[in-house]
């Protein structure tokens, strides 16, 4: 983890929060600049163009929802990066990167790992079995904080001989998840894996389907703006509800569209607001 903080601040922060991975001190922001991710909106927000509507819009996204750089914080914020994550291979080549469009929001590490390779399952799941499929579903994180972007994974196994309809299939109910609406919860588009073509000879039909085990990923943002933080305050868990809809067929019978109600509960943890204790 890299920030412009002094080594003393990082030392206190890691001690107070039990962090063992390296926290790197880029005092002076030279590395941040070399990476090309210096937050230039801070300077703009303190400069002559701070009233420019386009500048104000970017301030709301990347510095402060109020649209102005807070006077007490502004000068201190010079040198911060746009927060984000690079995953690199052993040669230092970027294999994926995660930058958010709103300064309050961050992907959780487990959420990123879930998006990178679906094998990891740190949180116990709920299993549901119907005559057509088995689904095991779980959140990427057991606990989330305001501003976190995390995911709900649905590992689905069609039963023997069954296929389920994938996006692009017409005339059948494509598998989908509809999430119950809740204030300060944002539901991102469901992520589907690649499907395969099923050829139904009697009708000379070619339809995209899933026949082998596959995973759907539903990303969720627990919003973190001040109003959302106020709404989450004092709550210790969050329950999300949704309905999985699908249609299954085998090589002889097409079953009626079906739906499975699902729910997920995650703990809510507060943001770490305590400043590291260092001589100031």
């Amino acid at each position, binding site marked *: *983890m*890299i*920030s*412009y*903080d002094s*080594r003393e*601040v*990082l*030392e206190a*922060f*890691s001690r107070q929060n039990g*962090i063992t991975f*390296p*926290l*790197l*001190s*880029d005092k002076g922001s030279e*590395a*941040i600049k*070399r*990476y*090309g*991710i210096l937050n*230039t*909106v801070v300077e*703009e927000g303190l400069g002559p*163009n701070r009233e*420019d509507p*386009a*500048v104000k819009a*970017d301030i709301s*996204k*990347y510095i402060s929802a109020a649209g102005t750089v807070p006077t007490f*914080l502004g000068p*201190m*914020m010079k040198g*911060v*990066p*746009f*927060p*984000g*994550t*690079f*995953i*690199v*291979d*052993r040669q*230092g*080549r*970027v294999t*994926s*990167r995660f*930058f*958010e*469009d709103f*300064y309050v929001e961050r992907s959780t*590490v487990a959420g*990123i790992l879930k998006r990178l390779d679906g094998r990891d399952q740190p949180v116990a799941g709920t299993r549901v079995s119907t005559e057509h499929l088995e689904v095991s579903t779980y959140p990427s994180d057991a606990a989330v904080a305001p501003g976190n972007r995390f995911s709900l994974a649905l590992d689905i196994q069609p039963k023997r001989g069954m296929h389920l309809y994938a996006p692009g299939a017409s005339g059948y109910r494509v598998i989908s998840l509809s999430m119950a609406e809740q204030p300060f919860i944002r539901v991102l588009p469901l992520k589907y894996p690649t499907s395969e073509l099923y050829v139904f000879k009697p009708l000379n039909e070619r339809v995209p389907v899933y026949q082998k085990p596959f995973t759907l990923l539903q990303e969720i943002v627990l919003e973190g703006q001040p109003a959302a933080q106020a709404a989450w305050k004092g709550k210790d868990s969050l329950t999300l509800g949704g309905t999985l809809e699908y249609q299954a067929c085998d090589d002889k019978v097409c079953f009626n569209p079906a739906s499975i109600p699902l729910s997920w509960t995650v703990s809510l943890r507060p943001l770490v607001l305590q*400043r*590291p204790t260092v001589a100031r």
Partner: protein
Amino acid sequence: MTRLVGWSLLALLMTLPLAARQGARTKIDVSTLGPQVGERVPDFSLPDQTGGTRTLQSIMGPKGAMLVFIRSADW
């Protein structure tokens, strides 16, 4: 030669403020900033919280590394 340099400088001085005025501010798009997928990230040599010096090589694990840039651990 001197005159040529002089004229070039003058031309540059004349175009600069104009360019600054015409160059409308481009909206920030964080997805375009920094090394993109497939590109190599710059190396670094920075102190860690224990006082040791770390480079891109020294933080590498068997499969690579995750570099997380944060605003600050202080506020």
